[in-house]
């Protein structure tokens, strides 16, 4: 039998996250006890949620994370390797087989920054990747960047420059901080691209 009032997948995600108001939750639950199509959609949402959890545990996403995220991965017994070069400075770094999560803590004054981009550059400073409009809290003193551990474990010895930039009212770019990561490969194997 076809569902005449399908529940949107995003609302089902809210239901799964216990983020619906009481009356809305009750309406969704009643519907789910009467409708296998929406139940199947909820299963897809649950599979999506589980897939995202697995990706997060793998440390393979390049993204800005929060300190609570780091606390959570530590609670799960994952090994976090963190480097915190000062603005304008460099750090010698590596990654081992035991590491699960790789973090660069980029200290910067973020007050007054409406939009912040994180640029990943090669050793000559040529931009290779840009994470535009990253989530930052203006009162925070640093940006916590997770580099893909899968990428780092495969990488040869190399140098990487991270730049935090913001924008003035005219749209001009302003450097908030530059950080050099001198990566030495310590894992066996060729480690070439």
């Amino acid at each position, binding site marked *: 039998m076809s569902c005449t009032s399908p529940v949107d997948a995003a609302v089902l995600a809210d239901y799964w996250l216990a983020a619906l108001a009481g009356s809305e939750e009750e309406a969704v639950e009643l519907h789910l006890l009467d409708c296998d199509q929406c139940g199947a959609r909820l299963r897809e949402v649950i*599979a999506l949620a589980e897939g995202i959890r697995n990706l997060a545990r793998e440390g393979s996403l390049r993204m800005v994370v929060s300190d609570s995220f780091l606390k959570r991965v530590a609670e799960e017994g994952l090994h976090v390797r963190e480097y915190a070069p000062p603005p304008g400075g460099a750090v010698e770094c590596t990654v081992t087989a035991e590491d699960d999560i790789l973090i660069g803590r980029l200290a910067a004054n973020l007050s007054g920054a409406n939009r912040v981009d994180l640029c990943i550059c090669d050793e000559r400073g040529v931009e290779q990747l840009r994470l535009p409009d990253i989530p930052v809290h203006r009162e925070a003193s640093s940006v916590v960047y997770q580099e893909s551990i899968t990428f780092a474990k495969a990488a040869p010895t190399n140098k990487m420059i991270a730049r935090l930039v913001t924008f003035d009212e005219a749209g001009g770019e302003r450097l908030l901080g530059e950080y050099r990561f001198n990566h030495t490969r310590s894992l066996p194997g060729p480690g070439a691209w």
Partner: protein
Amino acid sequence: MEIELNDAELVLQIGSGSDREAEAELFRRMAPRIRLYGLRHLRDVYAADDLTQQVLITTLEALRAGRLRQPEKLASFVLGTCRMTVLDLRRNAQRKEALLEKFGADLLAPVQPSMPHLDHEQLARCVQNLKERERSVVVMTFYDEQSGADVASFLGVSEANVRVIRHRAIHQLRDCMGVAS
């Protein structure tokens, strides 16, 4: 040709006498739905299976005794039973063995539709293709289990805005994974 009975017709059939086939059909139909309720509220597959079994037993008892006066209200009755049973499970009330004996374990074999399989590599690409804030929201909510208020505080936006970002991200991920209906 076999005509499928609707829920209310099944209720009436079960109430009119001992119809094992109708009871089995009710179990097949309701078990996956109840199990989803259990997964949502108990966050544990084994506890969800226990819940499913207990709710089905209670429902069958009520239907056999003709206690459900409005057969079209089966979903409401089952929802109420789910709620009570979750409370019972949390209080560790165990009547399970005796009831299993009474109703028969064969009838109560768990019905577990498997979760859909998602291509992990494809999902990684889809998540990486989200905008930065969208990616943060989905990871913080689904992995870190942060509340809307906590995510809002991290992003410096309102809770309502977090909900909008989350909804957009879920639709994009479903589109990207090819499961959007």
